[in-house]
């Protein structure tokens, strides 16, 4: 195998994955331009920082959801996981563990709970949707016991560092996307796509299906818990139910980004783009003074539209 053929194969695969995304990129750019025209403040460093800070946790949970959907799974435990991450951060950072210990505790909790969920799904052969549904009850119960009402402590400097007037959140997102790109180049990372696209074929080609599944659940739990840590730093405290909206929004963002439910179809950049679109939409409606009620209505319509329009366009094109 020469380098030329393998790189042309790589490019062909990338082109296939990018095909559906062009429309999304156009829509996102249009929304961003609209946003910048309406609120030129976004073009300053402070405005840009605030904007990306609102987007960052949503981008993380969209990645957490997309990771599993690429593998052919799904999780309904994203919201409780975000809450648990926020609660652990807010309860441990003031204690003997210190800030860094608290960070490690959040990361370890996300990885362990994710891996446990993955092990149940993969080894006991239970459907992911129902295991994570049961898991969401358990996780939110743990969060409620650790911190029955909003409170706790997050050090001031951490809040300033992550959610201050610097584009720290954006840099972190770029860093995480870079790490994802590197992870995709490892056999395990490739296995996520392979096992999602064709589990039997991947198994016969020597992909450790069960291990890939457990790893993807663990990473997904880690991302969701870190999103919780960020939310805790943003608000300066922990709240046992703060993550609730993230479950649906993570699915919506991933689907907007063209990630399919059956596995193997879609890209991480699509999911991140989808989360950006959702975040801009929510921001624009908020600043235009839509009441929260109208936001629900508009969000429902836009999500259906974003999924239906490419489908209808595709059919119209093939019929012609």
């Amino acid at each position: 195998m020469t380098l030329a053929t393998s790189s042309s194969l790589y490019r062909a695969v990338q082109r296939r994955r990018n095909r559906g995304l062009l429309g999304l990129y156009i829509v996102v750019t249009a929304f961003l331009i609209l946003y910048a025209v309406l609120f030129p403040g976004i073009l300053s460093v402070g405005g840009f920082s605030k904007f990306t800070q609102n987007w960052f946790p949503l981008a993380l949970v969209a990645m957490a959801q997309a990771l599993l959907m690429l593998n052919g799974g799904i999780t309904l435990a994203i919201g409780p996981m975000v809450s648990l991450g926020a609660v652990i951060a807010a309860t441990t950072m003031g204690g003997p563990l210190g800030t860094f210990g608290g960070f490690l505790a959040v990361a370890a909790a996300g990885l362990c709970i994710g891996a446990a969920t993955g092990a149940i799904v993969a080894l006991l052969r239970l459907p992911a949707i129902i295991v994570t549904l049961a898991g969401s009850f358990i996780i939110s119960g743990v969060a409620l016991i650790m911190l029955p009402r909003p409170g706790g402590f997050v050090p001031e400097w951490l809040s300033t560092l992550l959610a201050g007037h610097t584009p720290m959140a954006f840099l972190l997102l770029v860093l995480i996307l870079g790490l994802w790109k590197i992870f995709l180049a490892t056999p395990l990372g490739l296995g996520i796509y392979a096992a999602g696209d064709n589990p039997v074929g991947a198994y016969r080609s020597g992909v450790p299906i069960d291990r890939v599944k457990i790893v993807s659940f663990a990473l997904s739990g880690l991302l969701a818990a870190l999103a919780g840590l960020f939310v805790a730093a943003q608000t300066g405290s922990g709240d046992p139910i703060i993550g609730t909206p993230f479950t649906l929004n993570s699915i919506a963002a991933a689907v907007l980004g063209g990630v399919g439910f059956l596995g193997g179809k879609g890209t991480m950049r699509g999911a991140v783009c989808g989360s950006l679109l959702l975040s801009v939409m929510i921001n624009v409606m908020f600043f235009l003074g839509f009441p929260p009620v109208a936001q629900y209505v508009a969000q429902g319509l836009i999500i259906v539209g974003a999924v239906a329009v490419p489908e209808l366009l595709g059919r119209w094109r093939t019929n012609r």
Partner: protein
Amino acid sequence: MSLLKTILRNPPLLTFLLVALVWLVAGLTLRGFGAFGHLRYLLELASVIGIAAAGQTLVILMGGIDLSVGAVITVTAILLPLLSPAWDPTGLVGVVLALAIAIGIGFLNGLGAAVLRVPPIIMTLAMATFLQGVLVLVAGGSAVTVQNPAVILLGQTRPLGVPAGVVLWVVVSAVVLMLIHRMPIGARFLALGANPLAARLSGVSLTRNTLILYSLSGFFAGLAGILLLGMNRQGYVGIGDPYLLTSIAAVVLGGTSILGGRGTYAGTIPGALLLVTTTALITVVNASPGWRSIMFGSLILGLLLISGREARR
């Protein structure tokens, strides 16, 4: 030994035995659990879940899922008192109108799933989000009290000691079981769930059956909403929320495959009973909300290990 194997291979029977076992043990150990009044109350609670899960079972059998069940229950429970005209002494006009709206919502779900090709999970999720907004616009967030005589009759009377809601559940069960196992349309649903492409090539219309299915799911959710309103006497935003997850859990606990094509409503019936019993047991233990949530999740997970195993495909 062969008897044990037959039972293990038959999820509905297994779930029924599990319910019987839990009732027996709890009845012997907990004071008041085995009392007739308490068991009747459990049945009454289970009937709401059971009726909502009837539509969910049908949709899941065809390989879809309906995440708008909770929202439809809330919509009917809030709109029914507002829609019931004062000139109608029986209250049936309000009931028919509310059910028509529920069917309409289900039909729109089906339209999105079949014609626009939006994945059902997204279509029904977006519908639930949409309805949540519309509801606050219509009801303004306050609770409404029901005056409709038909609804109150349904929720409060007990002919021969059996609550009317349970009678309704028995009727719904008979109809749904007939529909799935004795009528051609049930065979079409199962065929579409097992292998959509083969079913379509054999002349089963995907669009038509999807529309029928989601309309039925909306209808049953609406029926559950009316029953819940009758039992509660009040409708408020969020009244139907708990029933979304329990309706799915009841279906899966009953051994119906979440992937579609395999299962029966006969499993969902004990599944609903099992869920209600579990919740009642957790309430008896008198723990904090956090522990209650943990116990509920662990129990569902444990029950899944026994009855919800997904066969390898």
